[in-house]
């Protein structure tokens, strides 16, 4: 199956939650130097430590951009623990297209970036 399915292309050309948040509770930026993909995530938390608002900025291939867009939709309203527990396999299931070995880093960049941001946030609280 072709990875450029309609839902992927839709998220690529009309990304959801694209943009920035001023003074976010969570911010992290990472790159995938091998491909030159770049993702930054911004999130705000509500009192119960769930993600109330999330945005991202990204540059790169269709897979990295679409996965960032899909991930932000998926995590909105979820608790930090829940989001931190999302596995690579969960992310690939969310994308619903077969990701080959060479594109894996593109597909997982947004998730890894968000989880790194959560980790930094939690450490900062201790």
């Amino acid at each position, binding site marked *: 199956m*072709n*990875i*450029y399915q309609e839902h992927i*292309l839709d998220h690529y*050309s009309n990304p959801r939650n694209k943009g920035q948040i001023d003074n976010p509770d969570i911010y992290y930026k990472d790159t995938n130097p091998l*491909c*030159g993909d*770049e993702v930054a995530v911004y999130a705000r938390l509500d009192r119960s430590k769930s993600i109330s608002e999330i945005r991202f900025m990204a540059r*790169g*291939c269709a897979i990295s951009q679409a996965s960032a867009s899909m991930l932000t939709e998926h995590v909105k309203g979820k608790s930090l623990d829940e989001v931190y527990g999302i596995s690579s396999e969960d992310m690939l299931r969310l994308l619903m297209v077969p990701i080959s070995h060479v594109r894996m880093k593109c597909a997982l960049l947004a998730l890894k970036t968000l989880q790194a941001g959560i980790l930094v946030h939690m450490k900062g609280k201790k």
Partner: protein
Amino acid sequence: MASGTMQLNASSIREDFPILGRKVNGKPLIYLDNAATSQKPRQVIDSIRDYYGNYNANVHRGIHRLSEEASEAYESSREKAARFINAGFEETIFTKNATESLNLVAYSIGMQLGKGDEVVVSEMEHHSNFVPWQQICLKKGARLRFVKIDKEGRLDMDDLAGCLNRKTRIVSITHVSNVLGTINPVREIAKLAHDCGALFIVDAAQSAPHMPLDVRSIGCDFLAFSSHKMLGPTGIGVLYGKKELLDSMQPFIYGGDMIREVTFESTRFNELPWKFEAGTPNIAGGIGLGAAIGYLEKIGMENVFEHEKMLSEYALGRLLSEEDIKVYGPKKGRAGVISFNLKGIHAHDVAAILDQEGIAIRGGHHCAMPLMSRLEASGTARASFYIYNTKQEIDAMASALEKVRGVLTGR
């Protein structure tokens, strides 16, 4: 044997390459990733099968028939490789690949560098021709300098002259850029390097497969290339070095085969070229490389070059006529490697959608991250040609690029 240039017959050449009969995603394979590695003709595949099936033995060791046959075949490949670049037998060292060849020089010569010495490379080097130098320079407190490229993607010769001085010990530059297709004026660089007393090393990974090479006429001190980019198998490469330099150099790997005499206290090293070839070598690889060189020489390297020049001019013409395509590198006087980007589309997406059409190109940074930052690109799509490619295949690539636009931009 070909003499003078004559048009190479790509369609009869194609029949020698079994893989070109294969389909990818239901479409006939169009292989345009030759700068990464080339395909292999039947003659090369058969030579390897013949070795393993009929005379497999270790070389230089056994006094028995099979070992003699294997040694004979392996060393006659070395003779072919030496002749191919107009080097001496003793000056032709087998390595694993161009990377190992460059590392051998970097370790053996580079270890003699000291504080204040300078090494000069260019901005268009493959990682294998600058990371070893960068690391040696860090260790030795030497300075690594980068020659700039100009807007067209050519080496800036004024900048080169400015980088050279009494402190320059080594100049190591690629003959052909694996990203830009630029052909560097290596004879001129050799002269400039020698004028200031430096050694000149040529990375010929992208030139040896595609054009006639003559180390004497270039005037270089060392030259490196890989078999797998020139129809031969992986795991074997060549380092040429001037005899007097190799004689004075320390080996970089120690072990069997490179020894003349060992006592518990000391070792006398074997003579050239074996001094640099410790351990059982890649015998099948050497034999396969010999077959590949035989195949290329039958076509004639002039003809190989002319064929690729024709293809790259044709491809450049097609790509440059598209408004949304940016082509990197010189417009003229270049080798058959073309890097480009479609406006607003990542090179990975270009390569992945072309793959659906059975077309293999490379998308990425091509192991040249400093060059990418210089070009302000996170990567490029790259098509690279060889003897079996045709204009029709370039047409197919151009129409597939239409598809890329259609899928990703709805244009």
